[in-house]
């Protein structure tokens, strides 16, 4: 079993990574405020890390937040209609970049999987959920260790 994530990462580090990703991808003036969450219901995207520490980095946002995120990342006008593929794609890419940057803080060498959306594998006991708020929307970044049984992803869609 790999080192528990709680001993490898603290909340502040995960929040700092997320803030940097938000600033670069969502917008330079977009502030991600640490705290709040968890998101009771919403959409999730995640990416797997395989190495000395193996697990997932999961981003979960409310449906309203994912729509607003998509508009912000793609710089769409409020009147432009959103495509479901774009919403999933933006969420996956955010999870991908969050995962890559979290991975860089963990023991290596390790590899990153392809990001997916859907219902993420249920976390075991090795889990660090970090809540944040963006434009009033709660969101959660969860770094969770691999469970004993290999994770199955029955409802997932790989980025195309």
């Amino acid at each position, binding site marked *: 079993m790999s080192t528990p994530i709680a001993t490898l990462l603290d909340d502040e580090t995960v929040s700092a990574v997320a803030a*940097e*990703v938000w*600033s*670069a*991808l969502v917008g*330079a003036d977009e502030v991600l405020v640490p705290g709040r969450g968890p998101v009771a219901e919403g959409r999730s995207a995640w990416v797997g890390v395989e190495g000395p520490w193996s697990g997932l980095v999961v981003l979960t946002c409310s449906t309203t937040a994912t729509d607003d995120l*998509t508009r912000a*990342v*793609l710089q769409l006008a409020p009147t432009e209609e959103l495509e479901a*593929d*774009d919403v999933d*794609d*933006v969420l*996956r*890419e955010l999870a*991908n*970049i969050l*995962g*890559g*940057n979290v*991975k*860089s803080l963990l023991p*290596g*060498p*390790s590899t*990153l*999987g*392809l990001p997916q959306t859907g219902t993420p594998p249920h976390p075991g006991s090795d889990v660090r959920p970090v809540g944040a708020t963006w434009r009033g929307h709660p969101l959660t970044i969860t770094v969770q260790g691999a469970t004993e049984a290999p994770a199955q992803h029955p409802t997932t869609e*790989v*980025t*195309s």
Partner: protein
Amino acid sequence: MRALVIDDSRAMRRIVGSILEGFGYQTRPAGHGREALDVLEESWIPDLACIDWNMPVMDGLQFVSAVRANPAWRQVTLMMVTTESEHGQIVRALAAGAHEYVIKPFTADAIADKLALLGLLPQGVPA
């Protein structure tokens, strides 16, 4: 100048493409390495290819190796744009033939700085 933007994320293709078009590039997107090779085989030869690492079908490292194996594509400058930030991965990409490496998340300024280093930032664009 021409740039091929290779990423499995449509959002990232739009973001990178938009930055490059702002610098005066004509861009074409590709969703993975194989699709990008198809573009090259059409004889649409870019000055620059921006390449994600982790993609389905053909990943960025395989694409770099394929381009470097073909002398007809020698003039294409290859820049990895990826979340893979481990030193070992960067060394692998450069050893395979990539010229530069940009880690996501990035800013337009970071892309401009790299292009300036490569001599691929058009005149009049501030680095």
